[in-house]
């Protein structure tokens, strides 16, 4: 749905799909590329084209590198990103008060709260790099940060 918003929504069928919705679903699954939609390449859709590229960056923008920035000034160390990160959920042991940041950190763990601030340990196992299909679009750490301190970027 996120992707559909940025398509021309004209159902012009130039891409070979019956509707823009169908195209967005295939786009999501990686079956087609943003450039497969001819109208999007027109200048008037430039903004949407860029937005889609950004959203799908992990699949297409090989030249761009995934970065997760945590703003130290904003972060209050609540640890929501640690808990909500699906990678953490899969590998870390649970405790009675939820998933605790383990020490020494589990080798897959992305985030860790130390000294009252969250820090990014490593990015290799981030779903945006590892997973396939929809899971590659994961940005839960950014979405749920109450202080808006986590930013996913491609640079």
């Amino acid at each position: 749905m996120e992707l559909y918003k940025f398509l021309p929504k004209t159902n012009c069928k130039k891409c070979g799909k019956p509707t823009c919705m169908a195209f967005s679903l295939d786009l999501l699954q990686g079956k087609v590329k943003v450039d497969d939609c001819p109208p999007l390449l027109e200048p008037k859709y430039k903004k949407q084209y860029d937005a889609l590229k950004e959203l799908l960056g992990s699949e297409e923008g090989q030249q761009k590198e995934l970065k997760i920035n945590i703003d130290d000034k904003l972060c209050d160390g609540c640890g929501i990103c640690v808990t909500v990160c699906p990678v953490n959920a899969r590998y870390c042991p649970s405790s009675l008060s939820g998933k605790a940041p383990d020490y020494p950190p589990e080798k897959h763990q992305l985030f860790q709260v130390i000294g009252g601030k969250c820090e990014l340990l490593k990015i290799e196992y981030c779903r945006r790099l590892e997973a396939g299909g929809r899971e590659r679009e994961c940005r839960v750490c950014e979405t749920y940060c109450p202080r808006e301190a986590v930013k996913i970027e491609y640079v």
Partner: protein
Amino acid sequence: MKRFTCSGCSLLCDDIIVQSDGLFISEVMGACLKGKERFDQVSAKNRITSPLIRKDGELKEVSWDEATKKAIEIIKNSSIPLLYGFSNVSCEAQDVGIKLAQKINGFIDSNASICQGKILNKAKSLGINLTTITEIINKGDLIILWGANPAETVPRLLNKVLFSRGKFRMTGREIKTLVIVDPIKTASFRVMGVRDLPLIIEPNKDIDLIRMLKEECCSVDSIPSQGVAGIDKNDLKRLLLHLTGAENGVIILGQGVIQPHPDYNLVEELLELLQMINERQEKGRISLLLMGGHFNMAGFDHVALSSFGVSGKLEFKHNQLIKTDDTLVSKIEKENFDSSIIVGTDPISHLPHSLSSKIAKKPLILIDNHHTATSHIAEVVLPTAITGIESGGLAYRLDQVPIELNKIINPSNNLPSDEELLNQLYRLINQGGSE
């Protein structure tokens, strides 16, 4: 790896990893910013490590003997001492505080009386369940924040109750619905997803919403089409469905709902609404969680209950507990006290000016570990070790669960714990009495 309990706020997170050699703390892992600040207080710039006495308007460092002597003198010259605070100390210290109040015929109360204590007593009388954090993690499906902003006050609360994956709620965040009722779009609103329900209510209109819900309790069709208190009809419908459909709902109340109003009692009506929903609902229930600030805010009531069978304030005359209609506020407002002993809190900052100016008029003994606005007007300042770091003890979490705090390092300058200091004052007064 041993895990410690953090005393930064009332959530008492029990999963903190502290690296220390017994003298200094080198690293704190897992604690939020507030918790980290608590650990940093050990070496804070404004930490007090020696007793102080006001001489010619200035606080001067003195020996322990001189300081306690002065404190005893103030207490002895006072016929109605006011003892207040006790939310940032262990239950053991609270117990000694009550003993001391009995000895010196004082009035003793904790911060909870102007915060969450009122709701707790009302909830008990209506028979509304208090829930625990673990229960919400494992079973909760609806979380309502009403006048509470945990993202800035109890930072890890939302992490635990909303995001943690529990035993019967494996997927965590996805299965729990969050509803926030607040007049201001606080930081807590930012954790909301599409299924959640943000309700920005018009200021002072909470009562209209509660009364509407009470009337319409089980009939979605009769919601007024123009909405209520700035909340539109569809959101109200969703709110009703959530309230009546939750299997294990919890409503978290903050300072926002305990504001007084001349015509009605908001907390009372809100709790009555919950009672009504729980009676009509067959498959589930809604329970209560009170969000306090200080780490042992819930403890004082438990200690007072176990030692004297009453919750909250206690007043003594002739070393006997007496029945009193006075509250902390009325006591100060009527200036019905002639000295105060403030333990681990800062009333000069957090009470309205009309009350703090009355406290400032009388001699004040402060027991705390760093400078505050109150230390600027205190006659005597007696520093203590920081509970949960430099001394241990029992504390009650915000969901009324007792948790043991541990000593991690030795106190700076060999400071006594709150319990030891209060005990010493008690002994000194006792000795004076037999002379």
